[in-house]
C-alpha cells in the first residue's frame, strides 16, 4: 500500500507563504511527478510529504492516516536526494545496510535485502567501494538501492537526475521506469524538466508559485491544458501564443480576430464572453502548418534543420513552426501558416483555457 492524499496543505516561512492550499491524490502504485519552474515549491512539498519540513496547515495523509505529526523516520517513506546524500565514509554495502541496522533488522535479512537490491541495480561488483570511487550513475543507483532495501510504502525522488549528463539521464530514466514497473510501489518524483515528467509519469502535478495549476495524465495536460501556464510549460518546443480579440460567436464557438491577419475560427466555446474581449490563441509548433491558404503571413527569421525535422521561426508575428523532414526555406522567405481549428487553444484574459465544444470531432 502507498496512497497519498494532500488536503489544503499550506507552508509558511515566517510571513512568506510558499505553498497555498494544495490538494490532490496520489493513487497507490502510481508514478506521480511534481513539475514546475524553480522556486515553485515542488521540493518543499516533497519535503513536507516525507516529514523533513513541517506542514503549516492542512493535512498530509498516507494510506488514509494523517501523517503531519509522524516523524520522518516513521512514515515508511524512502527518499532519493538530489545530491544522493550517500554517507561518504561508508562502503556501498554499509550505505544500504545502515537504515536497516538502525531499526534492528536481523543480519541475515539485511544481507538478503542488500544482495537483492544490488543485483537488481547491477551494483554487486561495487559493494565494498566507497561512494567517491563510483561514477555519477553508480552513485545514483546506490542512492536508489538504499531506498529499495527499506521496502518503503512510497518512494520519493528529489530531482534525482539533475546531476547526471544528458546521455546518462536518458538511460537512468528508462531504468527508473523499469523499476517502477517491477516494484509497483508508489513513486513521487520532483523535477523541473517537463520531458522527464512526460516520459516517466502516469500522473503529473504542475506547480507554479506554490499553487497547483493542473493535475492529470501527461497526455491530458498536453492535449487539454487548463491554462496558459500549463500550455506553455508542457510540450517542447514551447506552444506559440498570439494575442487576439473575440470577433464574433458562431454557434457558441469563438471566432477570433488576429490583428493584421483576419479572422480565425476555433473549436472553443465562447461561454459568456462578449465580442471585443481579449483572447490569446495557442498553437503548438508541431500543429501549426505551412499552407498556401494559411491565415498568418510572415518572413522567416531563422531555420533550424535537425535532419529528421525542421523548425522555422517567423519574426513578425513571433511564431515557431515545426515540420517533419527537411525544408528548402531560408532566411527572409515569405511563408503562410495555417492555424487548424481542432488543435487551436484559446485562453481568456485571465489565462484560463476556454472549453472545447463537446461534440466537436477531433479530426477534420
Amino acid at each position, binding site marked *: 500500500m502507498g496512497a497519498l492524499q494532500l488536503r489544503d496543505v499550506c507552508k509558511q516561512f515566517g510571513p512568506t507563504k510558499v505553498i497555498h492550499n494544495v490538494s490532490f491524490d496520489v493513487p497507490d502504485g502510481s508514478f506521480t511527478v511534481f513539475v514546475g519552474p524553480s522556486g515553485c515549491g515542488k521540493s518543499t512539498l516533497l519535503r513536507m510529504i516525507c516529514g*523533513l519540513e513541517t506542514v503549516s496547515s492542512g493535512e498530509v495523509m498516507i494510506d488514509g492516516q494523517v501523517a503531519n505529526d509522524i516523524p520522518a523516520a516513521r512514515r515508511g517513506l524512502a527518499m532519493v536526494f538530489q545530491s544522493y546524500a550517500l554517507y561518504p565514509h561508508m562502503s556501498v554495502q554499509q550505505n544500504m545496510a545502515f537504515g536497516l541496522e538502525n531499526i534492528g533488522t536481523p543480519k541475515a535479512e539485511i544481507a538478503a535485502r542488500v544482495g537483492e537490491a544490488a543485483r537488481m541495480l547491477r551494483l554487486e561488483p561495487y559493494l565494498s567501494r566507497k561512494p567517491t570511487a563510483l561514477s555519477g550513475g553508480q552513485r545514483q543507483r546506490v542512492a536508489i538501492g538504499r531506498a529499495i532495501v527499506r521496502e518503503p510504502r512510497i518512494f520519493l525522488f528529489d530531482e534525482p537526475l539533475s546531476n547526471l549528463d544528458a546521455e546518462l539521464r536518458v538511460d537512468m530514466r528508462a531504468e527508473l521506469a523499469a523499476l517502477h514497473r517491477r516494484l509497483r510501489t508508489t513513486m513521487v518524483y520532483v523535477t523541473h524538466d517537463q520531458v522527464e515528467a512526460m516520459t516517466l509519469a502516469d500522473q503529473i502535478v504542475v506547480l507554479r508559485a506554490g499553487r497547483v495549476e493542473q493535475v492529470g495524465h501527461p497526455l491530458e495536460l498536453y492535449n487539454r491544458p487548463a491554462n496558459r501556464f500549463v500550455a506553455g510549460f508542457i510540450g517542447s518546443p514551447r506552444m506559440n501564443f498570439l494575442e487576439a480579440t473575440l470577433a464574433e460567436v458562431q454557434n457558441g464557438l469563438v471566432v477570433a480576430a488576429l490583428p493584421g491577419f483576419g479572422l480565425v475560427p476555433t473549436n472553443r466555446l465562447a461561454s459568456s464572453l462578449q465580442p471585443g474581449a481579449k483572447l490569446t490563441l495557442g498553437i503548438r509548433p508541431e500543429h501549426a502548418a505551412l499552407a498556401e491558404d494559411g491565415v498568418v503571413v510572415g518572413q522567416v527569421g531563422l531555420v533550424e534543420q535537425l535532419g529528421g525535422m525542421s523548425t522555422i521561426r517567423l519574426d513578425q508575428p513571433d511564431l515557431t513552426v515545426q515540420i517533419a523532414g527537411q525544408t528548402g526555406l531560408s532566411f527572409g522567405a515569405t511563408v503562410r501558416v495555417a492555424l487548424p481549428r481542432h488543435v487551436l487553444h484559446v485562453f481568456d484574459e485571465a489565462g484560463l483555457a476556454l472549453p472545447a465544444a463537446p461534440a466537436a470531432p477531433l479530426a477534420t
Partner: protein
Amino acid sequence: MANLLTARRGRLRWDWTDWAAHLYLVLGTLVMFGPVLWLGLSSVKSESGLQAYPPTILPYEQARIDVPERGTLKLFHVTQGEHAGQDLAEVRRLGLQSQLVDPANPGTLIRLPIEARTPVMRLHAAWENFTDLFSQFSFARIVWNSVFITVVATVLTLLVNSMAAFALSKYKFSGRDQVFLLMLATLMIPPTIVLVPNYLIASQLGLTNSPWGVIWPAVATPTGVFLLRQYMLTLPDELLEAARMDHASEWRIYWRIILPLSSPALAVLAIFSVMWRWNEFLWPMVVLSRSESFTLPLALNSFQGELTTQWHFLLAMTVLTLLPVTAIFVVLQRHIAQGIASAGVK
C-alpha cells in the same frame, strides 16, 4: 533560508535539548565575556573604590562637598544621635571621634563617634585612571611603540609575503617548489625554539631595544605566504598574459593587477598580522629590555610586577590594550571568523 531553519537535525519542535543548548550558550557567554566586562567596570573605579570588599558592581566613590572656608570635604550620612538622617561633611577624624559640620552652617563643629556615620557613596567613573596614565607615566611613548611596530610590521608583512606568494604562484622557475617547501617547513620552527640565536642575531645587527628588532623577524611569515599563494593560484593566468600584451612590466602586473585582486586574502593576513604584533610577548620581552622601548604587553607585565597595589592604573592600561583589538573585532568579526575557518591558522 528555509533549509537553515529546519534542516538541522530535523527536529521539528522546540524541545528540552534546545533549552539546554541555549542555557549552555548563555552560561558560556557569561564565562567568556563576563571577565572582560568586569575588567571594564573595574577600570573606571577610583583607587578607593577598588579597595571596597566585597566589590561593588558599578563604580562608586565617596561624595565630596565644597564647604566655604573649610575646602572640599568628604560627605557622611549620620545614622545615630540627634543629627540622625542628616548629611554632614567631615572636617577631621580624631581616633574614634569625627568632627563634622553641616555644609549649610559651617561655623559649628559637631562631634560624633565614627560608628554613627556612614560614607555617602555616589556613582562616579574615574576617567582620571586613564588620563593620569598619560600624564604620570611615559605611557604615550609605549602606545606609540606598539602602534609603530604593529603598523610597520603589518605593511612590510603584506609587501614581502605577497611578493613571495606572487612568484610562487605565477612564475615557473627551477627551485620554486623547493623554496615553497622550505617556507612551509619553517611552520615547524616556532619562535620559542630559536630564542637564543635570534637574540644573538638581533644584538649583532644592533636591533636590541629598537622596534625594528621586533619587526624584522616577524615580517616573513610562512602562514602569510601560504595563505596568499593559495589565493593567487585562483586568479587566472590569462590576466597576466593580457597585461603583458598591454606592455605592462612584471612589477606593474604585481602591484596594479595581482595585489588589488588579492585584497580579500590580504585583508585576512592584515588582520592576523595586527593581532600577532599587537599581542606578541615573549620575543619582545627578550629583545626589548629598556622600558622606553617597551610595547604595551611588556609595559603591562612590568607594571604588574612593580606596582601591584596600583590596580587602578594597571586595569586602565589593560583596557587600553584590549580596546583596539576589540574595535577591530566588532567591525570585522565576520571576516576574522571566515579567515580562520578557511585558513586554519591563528
